[in-house]
């Protein structure tokens, strides 16, 4: 169980730093097509922002918003990734062949670009949720039990 940090310096810096970290994570996630970065690193940075908020403000501060729901979301990233693959199969092609995504008005290369963006979002969600769920598993047993027992 992690309690809020006492120091006003840490809390003020955290209020300033956490949004910056989250924005940077989104930037890395969507800039992965143009430079270094991508779904994995973006997801880890997003998860690290959430971990930072837990470490600074304690479990109770974030409990109502994310803590209970985040453990249920562990499969959402996988669902997005495999769902894109399934949509490709519905479109008449192989699994994860983004050229078969049925979106009117897009040429093949743009469809593949869109498929890359969607699967990267899936990876990022999966990695971020896994990171924060491991931190919760390591530090707070009661929250996990609340989450699982309802």
């Amino acid at each position, binding site marked *: 169980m992690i309690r809020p940090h006492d120091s006003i310096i840490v809390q003020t810096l955290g209020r300033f730093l956490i949004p910056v970290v989250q924005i940077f994570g989104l930037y890395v996630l969507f800039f992965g097509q143009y*430079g*270094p970065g991508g779904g994995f690193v973006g997801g880890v940075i997003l998860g690290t922002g959430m971990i930072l908020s837990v470490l600074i403000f304690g479990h109770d501060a974030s409990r109502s918003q994310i803590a209970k729901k985040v453990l249920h979301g562990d499969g959402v990233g996988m669902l997005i990734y495999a769902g894109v693959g399934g949509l490709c199969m519905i479109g008449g092609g192989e699994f994860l062949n983004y050229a078969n995504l049925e979106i009117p008005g897009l040429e093949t290369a743009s469809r593949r670009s869109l498929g*890359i963006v969607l699967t990267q979002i899936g990876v990022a969600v999966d990695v971020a949720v896994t990171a924060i*769920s491991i931190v919760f598993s390591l*530090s707070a047993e009661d929250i996990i039990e609340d989450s699982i027992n309802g």
Partner: protein
Amino acid sequence: MILSYEIPLLLLLLVTAAGAILVKDLMSAVLLLGSYSFFLSLTWAWLGAVDVAFVEAVVGGGLGTVLFLLTLIGTAPKDTRLRRPPPSAITLIVFPLLGLLLLYAANDLPEFGDPNTPASAHISPTYLEQSYQDTHTPNVVTSVLMDYRSLDTMVETVVIFAAGIACALLLRRNA
């Protein structure tokens, strides 16, 4: 000229890795391991693998250190005391020999950046030339990872998913 970057990086890597093994206190070992990851990411960036360097810095230097520290905080001090027996004679003989064998085998590796190696000549040119027309993605690493080799990446994501589930199941107390 080239070695002026390589030798300090190699020395820093060796010093931090040896320090993480030899230091008496687990907390110091964790922090030394974090700095080792940081120097390793510098090495990757120097070799041109910027994506790998990014992952190493964020996961090894950031997330891994935080997870280690949380584990250390959650354990009782009597459980984290280090018992380090002196290395046996077999260890002292076998591991230097293994290192010499690896160095000997490394002689046959191609030069770094050699364009005529099978790794550079087989399919990489196709990816480098075709990837922008195929996917409209300027970063070839991303287009290879998420498009040409998408199934591999999906199974890697399954591994991360399974790791998260396993941690939640193993670390949950009173169940």
